[in-house]
């Protein structure tokens, strides 16, 4: 899209940013992320319906951060990831320029984060419709059927951790999974260890998942692991009326509490 290229060129020329993160078409015709530091090379930027990857995960990578200020092409999930990263003090808001993309693919002009905040507030913050439908379907199953479903799905897991690597919220430099004292997650792939890993991942993303579905797209064996985090995103809203990534000073759901949190299962 030419106006993304023009905007990126303008930002790089005026030295407002040192790198722009966007999408381009790779040599095999597949959309891939692009990191442009030269204002003469911004023409490769595109935006179409195949540009699904959540680019916000690159904002916390030191290889990208060392360029300096970053411009980023951001659809709604990316904007929410950015808000979440700022609220968790992982990204400095002054270092980010957001090239927002509206739901119908138009370039939005965000003068500062408050404008982006207003845009996010106006948008639909629930899970994507097709995932929400799938959640509803799964929730209708009996307990044995659910267990069989997940046992079968998770037995495919090869422990490549693509779900972790693709997630903008999984930014820990040393994941507890990589520690072997204590070894919470077995290194080899087996169904029970895979289940433990996916429980751990979903629990660590409870109240933080911004429902982009990137983990499910990244999975090489097509485990719908995004449904686990989306279920918790859904329940976070049910119980605590919080949508992750809506404001830059939101409090983490799992590290705060209200004395009158309601539950019905503790006797």
């Amino acid at each position, binding site marked *: 899209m030419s106006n993304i290229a023009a905007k990126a060129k303008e930002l790089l020329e005026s030295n407002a940013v040192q790198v722009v993160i966007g999408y381009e078409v790779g040599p095999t015709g597949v959309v891939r992320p692009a990191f442009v530091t030269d204002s003469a090379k911004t023409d490769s930027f595109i935006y179409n319906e195949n540009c699904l990857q959540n680019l916000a995960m690159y904002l916390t990578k030191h290889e990208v951060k060392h360029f300096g200020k970053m411009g980023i092409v951001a659809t709604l999930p990316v904007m929410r990831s950015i808000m979440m990263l700022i609220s968790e003090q992982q990204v400095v808001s002054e270092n980010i320029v957001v090239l927002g993309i509206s739901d119908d693919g138009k370039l939005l002009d965000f003068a500062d984060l408050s404008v982006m905040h207003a845009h996010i507030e106006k948008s639909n913050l629930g899970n994507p419709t097709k995932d929400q439908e799938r959640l509803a379907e799964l929730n209708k199953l009996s307990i044995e059927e659910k267990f*069989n479903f*997940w046992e079968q799905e998770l*037995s495919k897991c090869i422990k490549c951790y693509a779900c972790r690597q693709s997630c903008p919220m999984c930014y820990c430099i040393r994941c507890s999974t990589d520690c072997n004292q204590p070894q919470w997650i077995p290194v080899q792939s087996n169904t029970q260890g895979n289940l433990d890993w996916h429980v*751990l991942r979903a*629990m660590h993303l409870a109240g933080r998942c911004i429902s982009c579905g990137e983990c499910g797209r990244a999975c090489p064996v097509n485990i719908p692991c995004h449904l686990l985090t989306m279920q*918790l995103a859904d329940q976070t809203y049910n119980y605590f009326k919080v949508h992750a990534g809506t404001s830059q000073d939101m409090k983490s*759901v799992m590290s705060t*509490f209200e*004395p009158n*949190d309601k539950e019905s299962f503790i006797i």
Partner: protein
Amino acid sequence: MSDFEPKVVAFVCNWCTYAGADLTGTSRIKYATNVKIIRFPCTGRIDFMLLQKTFSNGADGIIISGCHPNDCHYTSGNFHAKRRWIMYKELMDFMGIDMNRITFSWVSAAEGARWAEVVNTTVSRVRELGPYVAYKKMVNTHIEEEVTNE
């Protein structure tokens, strides 16, 4: 199934439920011996991964218990734990892990009789449910696979 004795592991906080369980003993109240108590500094310390490990190591049921809300020795540990359990329960329900096998409760240091009741009801419920076959089967699959590979 009559000779099935459920294995139940209890994760309790040091300040309320552990003291409560102590009181059960000093009050000479009898309760099911299927429970193995593990003492924690606070319910806020009880990591959900411990519960996962408990089931994978062959437990049939779990009890988690701590101070009543507003009674936490560390002021807010049990409130944090409550939020975590809400999320954990929702995730377990979604993944088809039987939440009837896990009891969450608040038992204070003065509630010796209540601790006996919590243990007895949990043990009898797990006894009715039988051994956690589905989970054990999943755990055993890879052990069998490894044995055959060797």
